[in-house]
């Protein structure tokens, strides 16, 4: 015995259902979205109701007042999903025995064998679900639900996943099976055929409520609303109050007479034929009458239909004998609700129709975007060309970035027709760019080795020193380790960051440390290198780590401590006797497109004016 009363607020309406079920089958029928699947979910515990109770054979599964709410795994309710939800990674046998994990191996095997035999699917035991037909999948899903011997069985649209040809066969098999099982069963469907054949009891549901419940015959003969009549295929017509005082009559389609002329019958309607369809020995006419909610269905013997030669759109009269009409009293509420819903659905359909996917243009759009983007580039370069400027291009070692930018400006003010451009990067990188054929006029190297190698490849003419540099220590502004001299670099557990030995600053830093070993002892270089926590590939990285306070001291070119960095770090001078001279070298390339201008630029750099700019950034002049 299953007793339940459940209430839950859904998005558009509140569902509220109460039922009592002996060992019989209840078919819940309704359109999709009417709340019938929600009902099953609440019964099985997959969805929490707002209020109510569920009771099976005296055991309470859910009671809102007593705050009882057993989880699904403790409810012992078999649930078969619409698409059967078989575990795709398990064989049929493993699927079926899935819920028996607490039993011993022997018991489990016996149970599974019995159930497979009961459903006549022993031969499928080793198949994987994707190899099965729809009907077979349904049986496996049933077997899986039944093997645990549930107290109640819930079936969600058990036949809708099957094709029409197998559906009626499987439906009959299911009926036999349910009879043998003899436990309370609830089937949810939208097909009245399922209700007709499987249901001991039928409940028609709409917008969360059961509109009518009863035996299949009750519902068919006396539909409680046009909605129910639509499902059962019964005619339900609105009539002017008759002698029994009722405002509706229900009648079966095969009792309807259709003529092209008016008769004297009490129940007669005039309408146009909306549709004609053949089914067996009958022809079904749908007659649309202006005042009625739903068309009248009339089943006419085929020979009679042919004699009358009726066609779609023709105006006809449909009538029934008084004894075939079943007068009914419907609550006006139900009718009102029905009208509202119908108009809502019609609107929805219209909206859907207007939404048509647009296919054309999908390929055009990216092309257009591409054209616009490229076009904008072309526009930019055009605007440059309008000045008819000559372009001078330089590859410059990163340490010379700041003075070189000033030099570029200086040169451009003196040569209004020249546009100087430059790339700043580590010497190795600008060297590679030159070697790979960069169309540069000027090459500035921070390292003698690199520029000599380039000269050997005959990529440049003569080169000469353009600026002199040194190495300095930098510490965070607050100098947490109180570093004051080079010697302090050898103190314990210091976080020192220097350049890697593959970049000039790294080599210079190592040279400085080595020079100091004359005074601080032979072990000084080892002590210092023990303190190195990171080897950076350029000076800016070293400065960043120090300015962030992660490193306690770093070794950089003083020229790289720009005003921005100077706010965060402090320079600590390295005595001249240990320091090195880091020289930048400049050259004009062999393939320079503007050799004359490039030479002018280099001369300007070497002149007092150019050297003054270098000095401004902390370099030493090559002229002094």
């Amino acid at each position, binding site marked *: 015995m299953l007793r339940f009363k459940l209430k839950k607020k859904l998005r558009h309406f509140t569902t509220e259902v109460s039922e009592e079920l002996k060992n019989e089958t209840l078919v819940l029928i309704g359109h999709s979205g009417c709340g019938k699947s929600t009902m099953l*979910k609440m019964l*099985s*515990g*997959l969805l929490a109701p707002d209020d109510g109770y569920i009771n099976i054979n005296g055991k309470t599964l859910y009671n809102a007042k007593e705050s009882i709410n057993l*989880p*699904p*795994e*403790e*409810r*012992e*309710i*078999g*649930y078969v*999903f619409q*698409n059967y*939800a078989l*575990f*795709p*990674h398990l064989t049929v046998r493993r699927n079926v025995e*899935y*819920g028996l*994990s*607490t039993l011993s191996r022997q018991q489990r095997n016996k149970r599974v064998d019995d159930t497979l035999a009961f459903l006549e699917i022993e031969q499928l035991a080793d198949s*994987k*679900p*994707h*190899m099965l037909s729809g009907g077979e999948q349904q049986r496996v899903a049933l077997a*899986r*639900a039944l093997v*645990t011997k549930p107290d109640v069985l819930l079936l969600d649209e058990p036949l809708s996943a099957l094709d029409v040809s197998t559906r009626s066969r499987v439906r009959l098999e299911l009926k036999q099976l349910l009879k043998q099982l003899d436990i309370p069963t609830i089937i949810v469907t939208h097909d009245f055929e399922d209700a007709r054949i499987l249901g001991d009891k039928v409940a028609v549901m709409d917008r969360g409520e059961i509109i009518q419940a009863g035996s299949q015959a009750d519902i068919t003969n006396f539909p409680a609303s046009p909605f129910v009549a639509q499902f059962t295929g019964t005619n339900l017509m609105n009539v002017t109050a008759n002698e029994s005082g009722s405002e509706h009559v229900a009648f079966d389609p095969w009792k309807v007479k259709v003529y092209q002329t008016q008769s004297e019958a009490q129940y007669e309607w005039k309408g146009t034929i909306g549709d004609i369809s053949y089914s067996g020995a009958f022809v079904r006419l749908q007659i649309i009458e202006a005042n009625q909610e739903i068309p009248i269905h009339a089943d006419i013997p085929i020979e009679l239909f042919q004699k009358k030669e009726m066609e779609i759109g023709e105006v006809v009269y449909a009538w029934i004998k008084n004894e075939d009409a079943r007068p009914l009293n419907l609550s006006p509420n139900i009718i009102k609700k029905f009208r509202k819903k119908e108009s809502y659905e019609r609107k929805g359909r219209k909206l859907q129709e207007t939404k048509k996917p647009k296919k054309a243009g999908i390929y055009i759009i990216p092309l257009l975007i591409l054209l616009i983007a490229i076009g904008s580039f072309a526009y930019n370069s055009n605007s440059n060309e309008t000045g008819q400027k000559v372009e001078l291009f330089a590859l410059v070692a990163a340490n010379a970035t700041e003075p070189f930018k000033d030099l570029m400006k200086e040169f451009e003010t003196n040569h209004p027709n020249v546009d100087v451009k430059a790339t700043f990067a*580590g010497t*190795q*990188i600008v060297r*590679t760019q030159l070697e790979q054929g960069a169309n540069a006029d000027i090459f500035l190297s921070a390292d003698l080795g690199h520029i000599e190698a380039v000269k050997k490849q005959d990529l440049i003419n003569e080169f000469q020193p353009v600026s002199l540099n040194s190495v300095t220590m930098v510490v965070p502004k607050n100098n947490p380790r109180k570093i004051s001299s080079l010697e302090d670099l050898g103190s314990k557990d210091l*976080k020192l*960051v220097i350049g*890697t030995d*593959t*970049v000039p600053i790294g080599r210079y830093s190592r040279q400085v440390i080595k020079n100091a070993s004359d005074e601080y002892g032979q072990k000084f270089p080892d002590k210092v290198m023990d303190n*190195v*926590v*990171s*080897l*950076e*590939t350029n000076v800016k*990285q070293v400065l*960043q*780590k120090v300015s*962030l*306070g*992660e490193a306690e001291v770093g070794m950089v070119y003083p020229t790289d401590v720009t005003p921005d960095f100077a706010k965060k770090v402090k320079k600590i001078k390295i005595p001249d006797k240990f320091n090195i001279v880091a020289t930048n070298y400049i050259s004009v390339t062999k393939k320079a497109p503007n050799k004359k201008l490039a030479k002018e630029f280099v001369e300007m750099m070497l002149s007092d004016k150019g050297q003054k700019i270098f000095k401004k950034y902390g370099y030493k002049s090559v002229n002094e």
Partner: protein
Amino acid sequence: MSKKIRKLALLGPVLLAIIYLTLPLISVFTSRNPALLISKLTDSLAFKALLLSLQTTLISITLIVIFITPLAYQMSKSTFYGKRIIEVFLKMPIVAPTAVVGVGLLLVFGQHGMLGGFFAIFGIEIPFTAAAVVMAQVFMASPFYLNSARQSFDCVEDQLIDVSRTLGISPWNTFWRVTFPLALPGLLTGVALSWALALGEFGATMMFAGNMPGTTQTLPLAIFTAMESDAGLAVAISALLLTVSFILLLLVSLIDKYMVSYRITPN
């Protein structure tokens, strides 16, 4: 006739795309003599970097799996307030420039960072250590695993989980018996993908962990460093990195091929 033209019109972009996307990486292997590549790799710098890369990424990927899998599951199967916003935030590392991530990590875990000071009390310093390398890798590679894992959990139908529970199996056991085996191919794909990404992580590591052979210099950092002096060595290490990543990605496609066969439905 027009069908043929249409086919040819499609073939052009397809071929160009394939060539453009493969050629630069293939050239890493073909530009130099393979024997030279191998001899360069015996360089202790390359070897140290490879070892460190393997060690750190192994730790990173383990951490990612342990911490991100439950997150991916929650993001897939639960709904909660602000989920969308969290989703967007969790995807940010994919689009954030790696240097920004490095700075962000420093701002949190650096010596003067939000949590760095707290760690310092216990004598734990993170920057310039292998731990920082792992943290940078975890940060950058997590979103890819999260995405992949989330998608694979999404693919496990809720109905299968529901049906398992109606069969008397608890949520915890349901996870291990249904969700996990079904999501496994996707999870493994995510592992391989984010592993390859962790191997290639560069910017954040450089910023947060520094560049110290043997401690924090991973393969990509070694490439960058070598680029400053010995381009040949840089190419050799690149080839090594690409080979490791290629093997990982190959595994991904094999996983897809052999583990997901049951998903193919008839018809």
